[in-house]
C-alpha cells in the first residue's frame, strides 16, 4: 500500500505521542516532527524529549557511525540510476524503493541530530566524552554531505518522491536536506543524459546546474576514437592480437592515416632489422652492401621525368611525377608542417604504402596511365585536404 509522505509523518507523530519507542526511534521521530513542525505541529515532542536522559543520549551516540551511511548512499545513487536507465516496470520500482530507503536513512540521521540539539536546549549541553561523541557525529555527517551533495544528480530519477518529501519539510530545513531538495526540479536532465535534445526544454535552458553538467560532458557526445596504442602496436607486431582485434586494426588503418603510418613504420623497421641481421651474417660483404638506404645513395640512377604540380598550398605541395612507364605522387611538406597522406586507387581498398624520401612522401602509382585515384592529406592533427586526380 502506497502511503503519502505527510500521512507517514503524521503516523510517526502519533506513535511518539503514544510512547514506548526505543531511544533511537524516539530521537528520530522527535526530529522528524520538529523538522516538519510547520505542517505537523509539535505535539508529543517536549514530553518525549524530557523522557530521555543524558545516559540515553550518550548510549545512542556511542552506537552511531555516520561514515557507514556513505556506502549506503552510494548504493542508493546507483539504484536510482538503475531505476531510470534499467528495465522498466516492477524492477524499476524495486530499485526506486531501495534507493529511497538510502535517502531516508540520511534523513533520519538528520532528524536525530536535530532532536539532540533540541534536547540540549532543555537539559543543557552534553559534556565530556558525550560532547566529543556528539561533535564527532555532526562532523561525520558534514563530511558525508561534502562528498555526496555534489552527486545529487544521481537521485533525479527519484524526483517525484523527493519533491513530496521536500514539500513537507519546514522551509528552513530544506537547504540542508540536499538529499530531498538538490536537483529536485531537474527531471528533464534524465532524458538529456542519453540523448541531448535538439531543442532544450525551458528547464534545461534556464537551469545552471543542468547546463553545466551537459556542457562538462560534451566529450561523451563525440567520443574520442580508439587509436593504436604503443601496447597495441607491440601486440600487433608480436602476433599477439586476436582475429577480432586484427579485423579492427585493418578497418581502422583504412581510415586513420596516422595509425596506418605506424604500421608502415613497423614494416620498415622489420626490413631494417633483417638488413642488420644480414649484415651480421655476411660481414665480408659489408664493403659492397651498406646499410644505407640505396634510394638515397648519391649518384643513384635517375631517369628523365615529367613533373606536374597538382596542388600547392602553404603547408604542402602535391606533385605528380611521370617517369618512363611509371608514375609516382609526391607529397612535399612545406613550412615545417607535419603532413601525412594516403592514396586510394579504389574505394574500400587500403591506401598505397608511402615511402619517405628526400623530397617528402612518395606513392608509387605503378605503370599504365589513364587511371584515377583519391588523395587525402592531413596537416597537423586536424586539417584534412582531399581530391581525386588522374595519372
Amino acid at each position, binding site marked *: 500500500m502506497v502511503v503519502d509522505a505527510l500521512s507517514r509523518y503524521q503516523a510517526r507523530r502519533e506513535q511518539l505521542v503514544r510512547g514506548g519507542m526505543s531511544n533511537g526511534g524516539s530521537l528520530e521521530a522527535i526530529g522528524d516532527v520538529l523538522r516538519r513542525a510547520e505542517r505537523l505541529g509539535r505535539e508529543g515532542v517536549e514530553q518525549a524529549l524530557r523522557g530521555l536522559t543524558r545516559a540515553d543520549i550518550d548510549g545512542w551516540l556511542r552506537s552511531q557511525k555516520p561514515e557507514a551511511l556513505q556506502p549506503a548512499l552510494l548504493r542508493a545513487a546507483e539504484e536510482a540510476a538503475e531505476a*531510470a536507465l534499467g528495465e522498466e516496470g516492477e524492477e524499476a520500482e524495486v530499485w526506486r524503493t531501495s534507493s529511497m530507503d538510502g535517502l531516508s536513512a540520511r534523513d533520519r540521521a538528520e532528524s536525530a541530530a536535530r532532536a539532540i540539539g533540541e534536547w540540549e536546549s532543555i537539559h543543557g549541553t552534553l559534556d565530556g566524552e558525550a560532547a566529543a561523541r556528539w561533535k564527532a557525529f555532526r562532523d561525520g555527517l558534514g563530511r558525508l554531505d561534502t*562528498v555526496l551533495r555534489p552527486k545529487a544528480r544521481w537521485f533525479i530519477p527519484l524526483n517525484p518522491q523527493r519533491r513530496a518529501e521536500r514539500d513537507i519539510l519546514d522551509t528552513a530545513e530544506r537547504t540542508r536536506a540536499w538529499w530531498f531538495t538538490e536537483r529536485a526540479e531537474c527531471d528533464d536532465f534524465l532524458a538529456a543524459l542519453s540523448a541531448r535534445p535538439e531543442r532544450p526544454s525551458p528547464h534545461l535552458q534556464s537551469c545552471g546546474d543542468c547546463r553545466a553538467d551537459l556542457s562538462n560532458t560534451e566529450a561523451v557526445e563525440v*567520443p574520442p576514437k580508439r587509436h593504436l596504442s604503443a601496447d597495441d602496436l607491440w601486440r600487433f607486431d608480436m602476433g599477439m592480437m586476436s582475429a577480432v582485434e586484427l579485423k579492427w586494426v585493418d578497418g581502422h588503418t583504412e581510415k586513420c592515416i596516422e595509425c596506418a603510418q605506424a604500421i608502415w613504420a613497423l614494416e620498415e623497421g622489420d626490413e631494417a632489422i633483417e638488413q642488420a641481421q644480414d649484415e651480421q651474417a655476411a660481414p665480408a660483404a659489408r664493403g659492397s652492401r651498406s646499410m644505407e638506404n640505396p634510394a638515397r645513395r648519391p649518384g643513384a640512377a635517375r631517369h628523365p621525368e615529367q613533373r606536374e604540380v597538382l596542388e600547392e598550398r602553404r603547408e604542402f605541395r602535391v606533385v605528380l611525377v611521370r617517369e618512363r612507364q611509371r608514375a609516382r605522387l609526391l607529397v612535399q611538406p612545406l613550412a615545417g608542417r*607535419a603532413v601525412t597522406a594516403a592514396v586510394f586507387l579504389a574505394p574500400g581498398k587500403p591506401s598505397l604504402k608511402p615511402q619517405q624520401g628526400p623530397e617528402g612522401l612518395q606513392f608509387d602509382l605503378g605503370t599504365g596511365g589513364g587511371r584515377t585515384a583519391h588523395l587525402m592529406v592531413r596537416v597537423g592533427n586536424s586539417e584534412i585536404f582531399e581530391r581525386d586526380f588522374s595519372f
Partner: protein
Amino acid sequence: MFDDLTDDELFAEVLQRRAGGAAVGAPLGALCERWARPARYVISKIQASYGRGSPADADELYQDAVGKFLDRGLDQFRGVSEQMPGRSASPKTFFLRIVKHVAIDFYRRQREDLAPGVSDPDEAMEEPASEVARAVDLSRRREERTEAQELYWRAFERLQQEHPKEAGAWELYHHQDVEDHEECARRLNISVVNSYKRVSRAQAYLRLYLLDLQQEGGHE
C-alpha cells in the same frame, strides 16, 4: 672483458646474473654496445619513415631502448620465447624490436606534440610576443584536451566494470567506428532495439561517471 663470448653466451650471462640477484650492468652494457650500430640503423629507418629526427634523437632513443630492455625486455623476451617460439628469434632481434617500437612511439608522440603548434617561422620572427602567447595558449589547450581524454577513458573503464554489456556496445558503436545499430546488433547477437538501448544507457552512465570524476578531481 666479454670479447670472447658470443651474443648468446653474453646474454646467458646476463640472465644468470639477474637470476642470482647480481648486477647485470657490465655484460648488458657490452651486449648493447655490440648492438648499437644496427640499433641506430633501425632508428634511422624509422626517422626516415616519419620524415624527422636527428642524431641526437637517435642517441636518446637508443638509451631509452636499452633502459626498456633492462626494465622489462629481459622478462618479456623470456615470456615471448617460451610462449611464441620464433617471434623473437634471438635476443638481438628482440632488442632491435624494442628499439623499433621506442622510435615509432617517440615520433608518433612528437607528431601529436608538434603538429598544432608548428607555425610559419617568418611569422614567428615578426611577432615573437604573440607567438609566445599563442604557444602558451595552445599548450594549455592541449593539456586540457589530454586531461579531458584521460577522464573520459577512466569513465569508460568504470563503465566496463559496472555495466560491461553497455560498455561493449559503446565500444563497438563509437570507439570502433561501427556507428550503425544494425551492424552492432549483428556483431553482438542482440536485437537492434537492444543495441539502441545499450548505447543510450552507456552514454547516460558515462556522463554521470565523468561528472563524478571531474568533481573528485576538484576535491583532490
